[in-house]
């Protein structure tokens, strides 16, 4: 499905552009509190109105995109940087090592990411950093599994058998054949994990264990609007739709990329 790829890329692109623009410019200071303009509806000055502190919702939404991407990039980057080498190692190393890595990753997988994040926040204080680390650690097994499965496939191909017969070392094979051939699958996994990381960050901020105020975060915007649902649902709708759009975007992008890259689907093309 080409459509998936296009729509996904468009949604993700929109968020990336918003975040980049917000680094340089926002309509108003997203953290400026002004009690005289609290809970305003949309006006020319405040495109999406103001929240209960009188802060501009549109500016917050823009800066919130930064937080969302930042958390996603670091968490997914961390997970891939740890998970992929572990997966390759599990497939290519000695059997006992492979078993150890995979059973440990099962263990981590069984441990809820949110619980880990809440524990980290309790010990080290709630911050974007603890949220990123917790989400990253919890996502490592996903990458390890994908990398291991991909590596096993590549190892059974003729060209790796030929390289082996030619006396190439394991590391040379891993570097020249395995990594390039599994990179597509890893990118697909990264896109899907990114969507999950965005959701997890929003959930953590909603619970008060993620990004600390006053840094704008979509999850905390949701939380702050919770008691105002009956008064002004717009405050919950705006960040809620933003989260939904990003998650949808990364999932569609992941699907689209899978159709292009995943060797397991090659036969069906």
């Amino acid at each position, binding site marked *: 499905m080409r459509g998936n790829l296009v729509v996904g890329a468009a949604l993700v692109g929109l968020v990336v552009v918003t975040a980049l623009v917000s680094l340089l410019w926002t309509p108003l200071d997203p*953290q*400026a*509190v*002004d*009690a*005289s303009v*609290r*809970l305003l509806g949309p006006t020319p000055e405040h495109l999406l109105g103001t929240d*209960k*502190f*009188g802060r501009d919702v549109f500016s917050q939404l823009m800066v919130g995109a930064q937080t969302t991407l930042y958390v996603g990039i670091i968490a997914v980057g961390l997970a891939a940087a740890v998970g992929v080498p572990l997966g390759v190692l599990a497939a290519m190393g000695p059997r006992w090592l492979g078993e150890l890595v995979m059973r440990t990753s099962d263990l981590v997988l069984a441990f809820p990411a949110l619980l880990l994040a809440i524990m980290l*926040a*309790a010990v080290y*204080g*709630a*911050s974007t950093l603890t949220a990123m680390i917790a989400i990253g650690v919890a996502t490592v097994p996903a990458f390890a599994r994908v990398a291991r499965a991909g590596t096993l496939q590549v190892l059974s191909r003729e060209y790796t058998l030929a390289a082996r017969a030619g006396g190439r070392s394991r590391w040379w094979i891993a570097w020249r054949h395995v990594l390039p051939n599994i990179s597509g699958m890893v990118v697909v996994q990264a896109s899907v994990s990114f969507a999950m990381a965005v959701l997890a960050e929003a959930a953590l901020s*909603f*619970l*008060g264990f993620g990004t*600390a*105020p*006053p840094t704008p975060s979509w999850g905390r915007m949701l*939380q*702050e609007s*919770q*008691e*105002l*649902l*009956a*008064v002004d649902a717009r405050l919950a709708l705006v960040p809620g739709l933003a989260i939904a759009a990003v998650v949808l975007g990364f999932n569609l992008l992941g699907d689209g990329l899978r159709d292009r890259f995943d060797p397991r689907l090659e036969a069906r093309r």
Partner: protein
Amino acid sequence: MATRRSALSALVSATVLAAPLALAGCTAGSTAMVGAGPSTLAVGLTAEPQNFDFTTTDGAAIPQALLYNVYETLVKVDSDGEITAGLAESWDVSDDRTVYDFHLREATFSNGEPFTASDVKFSIERVQQDWTISLKSGMDVVERVEVVGDHHARVVLRRPSNSWLRAMTTRIGAMFDPAGVADLANDPVGTGPYDVASRRRGDSVVLTRNAEYSTPENPRPRPGYRTVVLKYYADATALNNALLSGGIDVISGVTAPDSVPQFEADNRFRVLQGTTNGEVVLAYNNRRAPLDDVRVRKALTYAIDRKALLEAAWGGRGKLIGSMVPPTDPWFEDLSGAYPYDPDRARRLLREAGHESLRLDLRVANLPYAVSSAQVIASHLKKVGVTVDIEPLDFPAVWLQQVFTDADYDMSIVQHVEPQDITTFGDPGFYWGYDSDRVQRLLTEADTAPPREYIADMRKVARTLSDAAAANWLFLFPNIVVAKKEVRGLHANQVSESFDLTGLRRQGTS
């Protein structure tokens, strides 16, 4: 140490407000099966009692449900802060103010035993000997209790104390029967108008009329409702919805201030807004640089617009007080004008103190009012060159450890709910880090002084603290009660530890 422990209990009782946040999202429906009828009242509350024994279990939830309703005290405090008659019809105080003669009314415990002066002796001595909660220190000043007659008890104090009689209106003044204390955690026995009928953990407590409360031989005016169901909702939104959908008749205290207009606009409901004992305080760590410099503390106090803060953080509901004194204390003085919002003056003071720019951490309890206030404060202080790092700490555990116990903080925000908690400024070990001989001396003098001087002394304490900008009293937490129109007899102010059911009745009944 005693002061420190008792302040801890004040903070623990603030968990009433912690609960809605901690459990936000898990909306537990309330399912008590009680025949709803005109003689039944359902009250929605937030913090559930873990058991019924407030002699050994801290926290605000148990006395909120039981005091005045199940257990009675010799003297009560009314919604204006006045001490009034309870089980004591009247009392005399000796000239040297150390001997109190209480003249008791006829009353009967729910187990059928009559209430007499020997129960007064038993109850007071039991506080001293068997109670374990920190508030028991309020009874330390009692030297002995004498049973003069069946209805005449005499209490002798070691020294005059202005705070003791007021402390007798709290849970430590509750009257017990020697035959009724075997299983306090599950089976409370008191003289009050209600008796605990049943309890569903995580859901509700049902109170029914105590048959012994009013008898033909000893008639007492009964409260209007035969049965009262206390329903507990951890989540503020769930509590609101319960009233909107008719599941309850009264919300004991709204903790989502911006949701109040929806009730005000609805003519089925009445909203009462009054005061509490809860001062929301921005604590300055007086012991740690640069906040050990009075100029810095004053600068920060000038730089925060408390009126705008109250508006933005708590929907303008609450009261500006400017001191550690709620308006229902007799020595209350409105000091909220002492530091008018003046960012220029703040910048000048900071420059004088050598801090053109400053970075401070703000470690707040992870509770809605505190996190909201923190964001407004960060925004205001930014304008005078002070960068604020907000760190919400899990309440109570992490906050108690880092801020309260270790005093590892620059600034913090929490609500202090204990009556007369201004005395905490007399304890240099308290997390304020405030050490002033003058305040310590004034506080000691005040407690033993004749009543007239007591009030003057306490005012001096409050003013001294304000002059030193020892803390920044942001606002007094509001008491917001919402009820169906037909429920009568509710009070706007929450002064006592009890959610007092005794005066409630249904409109159209006597």
